[in-house]
């Protein structure tokens, strides 16, 4: 269908039957590809590598979905969205879901008619300053110039933080991370603020990372997670439970290396139900019984995805922190597979 789009359009009849609100999963199966909305380029979460392929934490969750539905983790089309058009792209059917470092907030969930189905990264807004300034706390930033990426919740949190603490500041709004980084490095602003996850990545990429510190204050809650269209519960379930499967896999010790072995059956009924050797959870979702096996085999469990893309051994160098499993003092927790 796709290939005829352009010629069709020549007569103004070039309309592709896009996703209708009711049955996204059916549309995806017909189309043979998932349309996944990602960022234009946030190192570690979603960015093009030197060959032009998408790589990153969010991208891997999309790949897991591709593997779960089609047994092909490449059956995903990545659509780069700006913070401006992401919700429109979702509601109009241009993308099937957003894995686009999108903060789950009340108004987005309720007013914008999107449905958030989980949290794949617990984030919070932090500040980074040059060591040279001698600042040790965000409360000492009175009068500072702050680089912010516009169109995100950080802008509002920043205004709130400074207002609550009775301080003034000079905002320097910037279009994207690359620009912000360049301006910060040139000293056009004293402080760079964004989600703590991105902050670590930016710091790692600076010319002299040791000359900058990230201040201890985290001024907001930024739960980032996938969002789907409001009113399509079947599709929301698929996205939710594929993500949960990746977390549950880490909880139960299933990895990409041993998943094939474990899928044959184990003594642990939870693993068996999740991997499809017991019960029919996959069929309830409208997928094959081994959907979780494929997803885990393709991208690994939550921990593996984390370590590969943004973990401590990557240039981003993030600690698990809040994103450790609940058993290890974090917040990542999967509802039971039963």
């Amino acid at each position, binding site marked *: 269908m796709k290939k005829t789009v352009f010629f069709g359009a020549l007569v103004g009849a070039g309309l592709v039957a896009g996703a209708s*609100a009711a049955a996204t999963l059916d549309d995806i199966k017909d189309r043979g590809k998932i349309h996944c909305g990602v960022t234009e380029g946030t190192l570690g979460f979603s960015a093009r590598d030197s060959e032009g392929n998408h790589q990153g934490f969010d991208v891997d969750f999309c790949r897991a979905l591709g593997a779960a539905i089609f047994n092909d983790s490449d059956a995903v089309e990545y659509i780069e969205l700006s*913070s*401006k058009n992401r*919700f*429109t792209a979702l*509601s*109009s059917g241009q993308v099937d879901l957003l894995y686009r470092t999108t903060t789950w907030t009340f*108004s*987005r969930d309720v*007013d*914008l*008619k999107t449905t958030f189905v989980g949290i794949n990264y617990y984030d919070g807004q932090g500040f980074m300053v040059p060591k*040279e*300034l001698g600042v040790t706390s965000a409360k000492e*930033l*009175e*009068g*500072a*110039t702050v680089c912010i990426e*516009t*169109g*995100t919740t950080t*802008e*509002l949190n*920043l*205004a*709130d933080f*400074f*207002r609550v603490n009775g301080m003034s*500041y*000079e*905002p*320097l*709004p*910037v*279009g994207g991370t690359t*620009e912000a980084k*360049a*301006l910060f490095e*040139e*000293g*056009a*602003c*004293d402080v760079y603020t964004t989600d703590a996850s991105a902050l670590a990545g930016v710091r790692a990429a600076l010319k002299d990372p040791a000359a900058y510190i990230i201040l201890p204050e985290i001024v907001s809650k930024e739960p980032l997670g996938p969002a789907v269209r409001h009113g399509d519960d079947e599709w929301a379930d698929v996205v939710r439970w594929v993500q949960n499967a990746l977390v549950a896999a880490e909880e139960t010790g299933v990895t990409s290396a041993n998943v094939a072995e474990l899928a044959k059956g184990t003594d642990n009924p939870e693993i068996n139900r999740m991997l499809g050797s017991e019960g029919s959870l996959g069929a309830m979702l409208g997928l094959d019984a081994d959907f979780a096996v494929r997803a885990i085999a393709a991208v690994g469990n939550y921990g593996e995805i984390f370590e590969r893309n943004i973990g401590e051994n990557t240039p981003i160098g993030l600690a698990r922190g809040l994103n450790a499993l609940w058993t290890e003092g974090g917040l990542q927790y999967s509802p039971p597979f039963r």
Partner: protein
Amino acid sequence: MSDAAIPQAERFKLSMLIYDSRYRSATIQAVVLTLVLAFVFWIVNNAVTNLAALGKPIRFDFLGDTASYDINQKLIEYSSTDSHGRAVLVGLLNTLLVAFMGCVTATVIGVIGGVLRLSNNWLVSRLMVLYVEIFRNVPLLLWIFVCMFTLTALAPQPRAFRGENPEATMKLWDSIAITNRGIYLPEPLFSRSLGNIDIGIFLISVDLLAILAVLGAGIFAARWNSKRANAIQTATGDRPKTLGVNTALIVVPVLALLVILGFHIGKPALAGFNFRGGINMSAPLIALWLGLSLYTGTYIVEAVRSGIQAVNKGQTEAASALGIRPGRTMSLVVLPQAMRIIIPQLISQYLNLTKNSSLAIAIGYMDLVSTLGGVTLNQTGREMECILLLMAIYLTISLLISGGMNWYNERVKLVER
């Protein structure tokens, strides 16, 4: 023969709508209008249905909600507790500010460049050609980025001004600070200020009003004085000297008022992370202003050049036959005539510059697009309302400018005899 020419009372047939030229134009217009209206109805209907399905019916009351974001460059008072509507107003004023500044400098660059372009100095005229060809053949957005990066990379940081032997110093007797965050200029201050009048939307300084009033009165008095001198000249043939009296009439009351108000200059000073005090022109504003002026300047150079070249050479020759010096020939004979050709092009360039100022969003200057079409849109999620309002405002600005252009064109049109 003659009775054949008398048309018989034809019965109206449906096919006449197409084949009879009396009706055809009406038919075509009716069809076109129906089609266009149907199309518009279809689109509007789709939009309303789609938005209703999303639970966002078209309403503009979000403009009254708290904006919750800050703006660094502002002409009127604004804080994050103000409404989105006020943020939009701040953005609109910022758009008008950069457009105005850009138009002024682009004109200066263009006129000087256009005259130099025709200079008989080979090097200078080649350089002007080079300037025009380089700047107009590369996208404006790229120039704006280049200006922004040049500024942030080359100008010193505020902290470079600190310490015993600072790396950077303020210019012009410590009154101007050029940093990579912007330029801080001295500001006029009044120690015995008269305060402000709040007219609802913004504050107006009474000091400024008073100065303008005194200045206006002074000019009025000076004109009256000149008129009196003219009258005396026609009556007696002797013209009394007016220059001194006129200058005194204009300058002295203003100076007196300034002294009464306690006028002094407030210099920017380094305090904490940044310079405080003075008038701050932020780096994005300067980058956008420079980019727009240099880019649009090239078009004005060409307009000026073609305007000057279009003036009949005989005019220059006549002027030099009358013994007028080349400089004065240009300013008294050639330019006034060239203006008729230049002005319409100039105004369409002003129009372009104003529209191009929307590129502000790329470097974070908080103009109309960055506020209404940027942060406000993102925070409220009201795409339809924000973008339509944005387009409506730009359309209004454009129509006002082109209305002004038409009015001017009518006025200066050569009355042909």
